[in-house]
């Protein structure tokens, strides 16, 4: 499922004195299979944008299609039957586009981890047998790296923060979405938890979920993990490209109220003292290139 949107506008508290212009003409295409990063200063409209993608915020103005679903605003009055159809469509859309909000652990509610994770499955696929529900739930819990037998009957409230977040993510991926959207999934995690979460996302991307969209404030993570990045600024997408393309222009990035990743910073500083290193700003590639450079100079010295 590709995502295509053009000139998307959205205002909160429309027609009141508290109006805030959240989206001011977002145009963006996200291809299937991408590990897509969304960056931008606070209040740039990232969260507002992603909530359009599964119809949580109805499109006010502009064009938006997600796969075969056309979410664009239509002014045509609808019959009851069409409305029902639309509602079913929306449900299917929400099944295909999984959304993990910021601090998803605060949305856990059920008595047991099993009930919480299977909540989405039961909503989206009410006709499944209990055994099928159990299999899907078990799969989801194990995919996020938790021990199904140990954890399934526990209360979600007695887990640690990191475990809660995994359970919450399991609850979203349980219904097998083909697009997974995460809003700052690493907020409040320790470095190990963070690395583990990125690894989890990569393994999901390789095995079950075609497209992953991540909103993140950590440029190092974005540079190391994403295949493509969009920069939001004041409710607009002002640039898209690979991390390499974006972060090589550090002046532009800081104009947007952001910082370049450490690797880009180092590359630029090294360039200033006459050492040219070519890398795509992932930590691994940077280290490789730098090692190569050192080897070459050693050879030259000999």
């Amino acid at each position, binding site marked *: 499922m590709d995502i295509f949107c053009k000139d998307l506008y959205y205002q909160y*508290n429309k027609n*009141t*004195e508290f109006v805030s212009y959240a989206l001011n003409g977002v145009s963006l295409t996200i291809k299937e299979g991408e590990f897509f990063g969304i960056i931008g200063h606070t209040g740039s409209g990232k969260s507002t944008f992603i*909530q359009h993608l*599964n119809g*949580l915020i109805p499109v006010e103005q502009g064009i938006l299609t997600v796969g075969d679903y056309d979410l664009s605003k239509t002014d045509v009055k609808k019959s009851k039957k069409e409305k029902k159809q639309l*509602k079913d469509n929306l*449900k299917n859309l*929400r*099944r295909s586009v*999984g*959304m993990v*909000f910021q601090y*998803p652990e*605060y*949305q*856990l*509610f*059920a008595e047991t981890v099993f009930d919480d994770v299977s*909540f*989405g499955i039961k*909503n*989206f696929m009410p006709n499944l047998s209990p055994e099928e529900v159990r299999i899907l739930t078990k799969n989801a819990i194990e995919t996020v790296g938790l021990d199904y037998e140990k954890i399934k009957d526990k209360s979600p*409230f007695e887990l640690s923060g990191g475990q809660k977040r995994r359970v919450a993510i399991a*609850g*979203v991926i349980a*219904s097998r979405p083909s697009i997974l959207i995460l809003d700052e999934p690493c907020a409040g995690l320790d470095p190990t938890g963070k690395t583990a979460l990125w690894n989890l996302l990569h393994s999901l991307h390789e095995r079950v979920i075609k497209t992953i969209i991540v909103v993140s404030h950590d440029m190092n993570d974005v540079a190391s993990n994403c295949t493509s990045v969009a920069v939001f600024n004041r409710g607009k997408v002002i640039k898209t490209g690979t991390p390499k393309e974006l972060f090589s222009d550090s002046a532009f990035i800081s104009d947007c109220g952001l910082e370049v990743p450490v690797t880009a910073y180092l590359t630029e500083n090294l360039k200033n003292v006459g050492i040219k290193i070519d890398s795509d700003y992932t930590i691994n590639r940077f280290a490789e290139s730098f090692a190569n450079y050192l080897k070459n100079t050693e050879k030259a010295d000999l």
Partner: protein
Amino acid sequence: MLKDVVFGQYYPAKSPVHRMDPRSKIVLLILYIVMIFIVKNFWGFLLTGGLLLATVFLSKVPLKSMLRSVKAIIFIILFTFIINIFFHKEDGAKILWDVWLIRNVTDKSLYYAIFMALRLLLLVLGSSILTLTTTPVSLTDGIESLLKPLSYIKFPVHELALIMSIALRFIPTLMEETERIIAAQKARGADFESGNLFKRAKALLPVLIPLITSAFRRAEELGDAMDARCYNGSKNRTKYKKLKFSLVDLFGTVLSLTVLAGVILCNLYLGATI
């Protein structure tokens, strides 16, 4: 959305009404309510309505915001209007309509119904002027200061005011949280709009439980933060913002008292019709 439901939305502006001492605003509002209830003919409403309009004009609050607070209770106003028009009985009333569903409508009941609806309307508009021009914080400050005498009989005035201001402070936060949780559960396929009443109530569970746990979490955090700063409501606490009775307050008081006198004169000399 949810936020529109909450009344007490403060409208920020620089105006004499905003500048007034919250205490005098509260007292004058009470005075205004008393006026509305002692008014006995439409001349009185003309005066109190004039006072209201003048205040709205001075406060720079747009009419749109005023009307929003009416929207919240328009149902109650309509309901009392309909009840009164059909069930108000008075001697010597002339029947206006008595056909089909519209039974027993007399000139007196129509008059009475309009009168009562107007009374409610003025009441709501007047009260919303207070909440629109006063921040919740200074409102509680005002209430605390007005209730101060009660602390001599060991009534926990300060604690009460603190509870009030904390509650007010957290209403928007919890509203936001509710919206977020609803969105998150919708994303997991929760359906709050279909099914019978029982089903819908059950569907709210995935919203209420996280909301309540988060309210507890916030309460705990706030308590810890206050403890960490050695907060206590002891006697010698000073205020960051001192309340002061100034010229605008004097002007407001004089104006209100004049209108009160006018209302009483109207009642005495222009005939009581209610």
